[in-house]
């Protein structure tokens, strides 16, 4: 390749046997009778530009070995019979990402203050360009995520996919379910209208009915014996900082285990025994 002269030596593709200048068995070219054609600068630069994206990727890959990891992640084998029900987990992940993205942009206009929260939500809905749309995506997306996570859980349960060796992934999934419900609970207060205020009052009081520790849990959630000045900002911090980080971390472990352990075949597909055993069984 003529470009070789431009590429730093360590990144240069090694010549195939029988090719290249230093190839064994080939007579050295006579530079006097057949001088190599020298490409114009423009041509060289153009050729180089075409290769540039590949070069950059190769540079990154050589230092991270990411391609091997990504190949293993994306081209892993799945069992026969894998069907649309297996997409519910990815759908839940997509719903979470949608919530994270819309939430970040809502936070640009929202004010977590008892006296300004309602007005800031009204401002988002009525004045901000596409504000009602983004707020609506976040609001309806939360219900969607709860529905999807339950469907995903049902699929796992009815397909028996929680069994050995995937019990730990089930446990992590249950924690993710609880965290998702906590997200739905803490997010409900943020619009700070009558409905969200009273729903939160009732919700906190339900939490408080747990014996012994319940009353203290209520005080923790409200930051005091009554709904107070910092209750809203407390819910806001839990909703947008604490739990999203936990969910993202647990999703990473959840996915790692999915890739590591593989997925299960649907229960209606019986495992095919090797030929001799199959005969023995009959």
């Amino acid at each position, binding site marked *: 390749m003529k470009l070789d002269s431009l590429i730093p030596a360590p990144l240069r593709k090694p010549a195939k046997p029988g090719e290249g200048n230093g190839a064994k068995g080939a007579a050295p070219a006579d530079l006097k009778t057949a001088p190599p054609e020298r490409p114009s600068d423009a041509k060289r630069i153009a050729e180089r530009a075409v290769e540039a994206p590949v070069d950059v990727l190769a540079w990154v890959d050589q230092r991270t070995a990411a391609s091997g990891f990504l190949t293993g992640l994306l081209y892993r084998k799945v069992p026969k019979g894998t069907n649309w029900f297996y997409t519910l987990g990815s759908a839940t992940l997509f719903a979470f990402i949608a919530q994270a993205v819309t939430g970040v942009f809502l936070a640009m206009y929202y004010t977590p203050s008892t006296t300004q929260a309602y007005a800031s939500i009204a401002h988002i809905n009525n004045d901000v360009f596409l504000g009602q749309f983004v707020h609506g995506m976040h609001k309806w997306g939360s219900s969607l995520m709860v529905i999807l996570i339950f469907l995903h859980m049902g699929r796992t349960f009815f397909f028996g996919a929680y069994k050995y060796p995937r019990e730990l992934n089930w446990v992590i999934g249950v924690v993710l379910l609880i965290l998702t419900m906590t997200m739905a609970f803490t997010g409900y207060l943020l619009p700070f209208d009558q409905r969200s205020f009273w729903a939160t009052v009732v919700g906190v009081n339900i939490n408080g009915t747990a014996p012994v520790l319940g*009353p203290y849990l209520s005080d923790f959630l409200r930051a*005091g014996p009554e*709904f107070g*000045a910092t209750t809203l900002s407390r819910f806001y911090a839990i909703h947008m900082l604490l739990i999203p980080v936990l969910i993202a971390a647990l999703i990473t472990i959840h996915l790692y285990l999915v890739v590591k352990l593989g997925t299960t075949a649907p229960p209606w597909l019986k495992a095919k025994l090797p030929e001799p055993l199959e005969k023995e069984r009959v």
Partner: protein
Amino acid sequence: MSDDADKQSRAEASGRPERAKPEPPGYFEGESMTRRRALEVAVQGVGGLAGAAIVLPAVGFAVAPIFHRGKERWEAIGPVGDFVEDTYRQVVFTETESIGDAGKTTAYVRRSSKQLGEEPGKFVAVSNRCAHLGCPVRFVEAAGNFICPCHGGVYDFQGKRIGGPPVRPLDQFQTRVRKGQVEVGPRYSVTSQLEPVRARDPGEFTGGIWEYLYPPRPSTFPPPSS
């Protein structure tokens, strides 16, 4: 460990005596901990201290409100003559300051009634917070009852539960008279016999063993003595 064992077994298998291992640097007779182990413990200890220095203040910061009791607050709600024995007057006052309407609450106030066997000359302020889950109850004049719109809790004239899911009578507020004005103060809860106890959240039983299963919180005020 396994290396040592392997070496030993190999040595035994080949019938050769094991070669004496050189002493690690800094070794002395009778040492209780190798230098490597001591450094491990030290590094882990320092790491643990650094972690605790971050986590403990943060956790304390988050849970501090559980142990904090705010300032006692009294608010005048009207002259003594405004209140009668046989019906309630609805008053709205501020329970939590500086959070606007969200900090306001409603009480139904009357004079104490001789007919009901109450100590005369006092004022009774019944909170409108349902003892089930905290919805606002309403005093229905015609029935003489408090009725909750959420789940159908019903309380009699004194605030005792007579129907629905509530677990105890309605809360009350302390009252006093200053300069001819009735004032309401901190909230307290009552048992089914209307004995005052420290304020509980809705949904929590009061009296008897429930005083231990739903312990009083440090953030609430002591009940009035009576």
